[in-house]
């Protein structure tokens, strides 16, 4: 199916929706592609049991602005500039655009420790997403661990839904957190959010310099061994929500040849990448959270629609948010003890069940892929890549299409015409 847009946005989270609305307000033809059944991204995950998110408001707004939303659809290839191929549940889209805005968001970083593959060990955002999608959590014993502000937001959310949160383990020191909190004070809105969070979290034991050493359980999670300021402790547990801050989703940006700096997509003042006609907004430019995403989205939307004067007033605020993103990265950087957790038989690549012991023998990401098939499974290295980068300092290679697994038939859809001589030579079948 062919579709043509003045501005095409990939990703329907806050940045994407803000970009779509911004561009559409300028009167241009806007399309938005998202891989979930309903827009909202992760933070505003919607359509499930929890209908309290802003996503439905935004969805109505996009509808009234006549943005064409294409849900349950993933971009997998870009054979030439201004053209993308995306796969939906039962069709393939050929999407032509004048300007493209990448709002592909971020995913959690997972680090490996013994038992992390046991069912009910999930990401922090992962468990939250499951609860938003109907997982009963009331009365369940939950431990939250890892690093980053997401842990606090998840703790508050789960608590509100009846989870019994026995502990929140943050690997940074208390000092780092205090420093971060002081930084927040410079941004009143964030400070207010933090204070409100503090109320929501009252009573939850917070442990700093703390992380999960091992998860235990036969078929599902039963207990955790945690390190708290050097002390080892084992606690019974039904769910572990564990994530180590966020990794930007830059695969599509890489595929398009956008400059990437330090894992983030390089953008100029108006959110334009190094590839002309391609913009980027939100987490892929720097993990800054909701406010940054909304601002950047809006700026990108106006810029892409050619209305730079509408974007200009927002730049200063956006720059402040950028600083916040940098501060987040600095505050929540990973401590070296986390590299020591994996044992020889701890699985690192979950798609192919490749253990740490086997990976240690490889000298590079490429070698690991070739001899162990680490990173060659359907997640295409999105889970094990950040883990191996942290463990071994491996840099993953360039991205190739398909940047997401697709149906076999989708590749047929991307060809223009079959060359006549090919069908003659290829055998006697009529």
């Amino acid at each position, binding site marked *: 199916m062919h579709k043509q847009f003045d501005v095409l946005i990939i990703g329907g989270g806050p940045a994407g929706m803000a970009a779509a609305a911004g561009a559409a307000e300028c009167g241009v033809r806007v399309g938005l592609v998202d891989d979930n059944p309903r827009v909202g991204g992760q933070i505003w995950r919607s359509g499930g049991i929890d209908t309290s998110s802003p996503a439905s408001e935004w969805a109505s707004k996009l509808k009234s602005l006549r943005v064409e939303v294409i849900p349950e659809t993933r971009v997998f*290839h870009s054979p030439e500039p201004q053209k993308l191929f995306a796969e939906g549940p039962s069709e393939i889209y050929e999407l032509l655009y004048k300007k493209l805005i990448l709002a592909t968001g971020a995913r959690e970083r997972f680090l490996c420790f013994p038992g992390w593959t046991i069912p009910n060990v999930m990401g922090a955002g992962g468990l939250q997403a499951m609860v938003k999608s109907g997982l009963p959590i009331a009365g369940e014993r939950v431990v939250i661990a890892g690093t980053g502000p997401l842990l606090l937001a998840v703790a508050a959310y789960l608590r509100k839904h009846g989870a019994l949160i026995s502990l929140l383990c943050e690997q940074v020191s208390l000092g780092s957190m205090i420093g971060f909190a002081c930084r927040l004070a410079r941004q009143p809105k964030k400070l207010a959010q933090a204070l409100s969070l503090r109320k929501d979290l009252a009573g939850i034991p917070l442990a700093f310099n703390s992380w999960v050493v091992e998860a235990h359980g036969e078929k599902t999670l039963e207990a955790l061994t945690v390190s708290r300021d050097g002390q080892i402790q084992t606690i019974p547990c039904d769910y572990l929500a564990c994530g180590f801050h966020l990794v930007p989703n830059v695969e599509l940006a890489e595929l398009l040849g956008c400059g990437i700096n330090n894992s983030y997509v390089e953008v100029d003042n108006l959110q334009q990448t190094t590839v002309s006609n391609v913009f980027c907004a939100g987490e892929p430019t720097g993990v800054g959270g909701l406010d940054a995403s909304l601002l950047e989205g809006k700026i990108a939307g106006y810029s892409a629609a050619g209305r730079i004067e509408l974007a200009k007033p927002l730049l200063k605020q956006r720059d402040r948010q950028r600083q916040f993103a940098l501060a987040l990265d600095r505050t929540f950087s990973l401590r070296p003890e986390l590299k020591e957790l994996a044992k020889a038989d701890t699985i690192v690549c979950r798609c192919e069940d490749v253990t740490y012991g086997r990976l240690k023998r490889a000298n590079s990401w490429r070698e690991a892929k070739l001899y162990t098939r680490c990173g060659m499974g359907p997640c295409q290295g999105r889970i094990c890549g950040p883990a191996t980068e942290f463990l071994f300092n491996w840099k993953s290679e360039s991205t190739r299409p398909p940047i997401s697994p697709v149906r076999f038939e989708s590749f047929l859809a991307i060809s223009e015409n079959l060359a006549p001589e090919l069908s003659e030579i290829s055998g006697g079948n009529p």
Partner: protein
Amino acid sequence: MSPAVHDVLIVGAGIVGAACAYQCAREGMRVAVLDKGMIGGGATAAGMGHIVVMDDSEPQFALTRYSRQLWQEMRPELPNDVEYEQCGTIWVAADEEEMMEVKRKESFYQKRGVATEVIDSSTLENYEPHLRKGLAGGLVVPEDDVLYAPCAAKFFLEQAKASGAQIDLGSAVLKLGNGHVTTASTEFSAAIVVNAAGTWAAELTPGLNIKKRKGHLLITDRYPGFIKHQLVELGYLKSAHSTTADSVAFNLQPRRTGQILIGSSRQYGAEHKEVDNEILASMLQRAQEYMPELSGLSTIRAWTGFRAATPDKLPLIGPWPEDERLFLATGHEGLGITTSLGTARLLVDQIVGRTSAIPVEPYLPARTFSEHAHA
């Protein structure tokens, strides 16, 4: 690695170079192996990993059959990550004309002691239910195999190393000849140098007529039992035959993982490694004609590779007439993995000067030499 005198210095740590190193080390030679990249990082990494007997010509048959036997003898030693499977091949006949070809092949193989089974349409359906209905039948070659070649190459080199071989990876060879090999940092000398550099062989030995033949592959997620044999259309032979045109052919391979490897394509003159959308789509369309149910399968990766092709489709195994200390072990096109073990034997036989199990004349580099223009 400090300069030292070796008996044999092999340039190229692909499956062929690795097999040669293994054999040389086994025979007590002091071996060194150089490669500009990783072990098995070239065609070895990109290819399908099949071990097949082929009847394109007597010499091709002799070498593939000899090699397949050597693989079968080696099987008990191969580690798990080599994923050796005797899944067999079915040459699929689409119509009665191709069934005649099946019968011809059967007769050819039977005379030479290779086990085969001619199957009709309903048996084919039985063996491989996902093939489309209405195919005429096929030829089963039950002793053909598949394996994961990069790990096989690694295994050979580990074995060679255990016998004292030196492996030097990550150094590109700039020049070789007359018993010397030069990299950016060092010069090595050896009694014999072996050019096993595959698609790079002609860069190192001017006058070698080796062309790169690009291929495409696509791999699916795991669908255990979806196919049980390697499946090849008889038109594959037409595709492999052509020396000038681009072509595709139906060729599927089951991996032990349950993933399905989908090929195959051949192009001349394509230099860039990016996937060629048109060729890929054409290859997949061909595959879909034989197996419509492929359409909905989840596919994870697409990639390309380059085969080292010679004009007469036979590899070059033996001394290079212009240099008495240079041997070649290259030009294997799509049969590098299959014939790696046979190549290693023939090479070492010639180095030590003994008669090989099969005649070596068809593979001698000297055969091309009369047409080769002197530099």
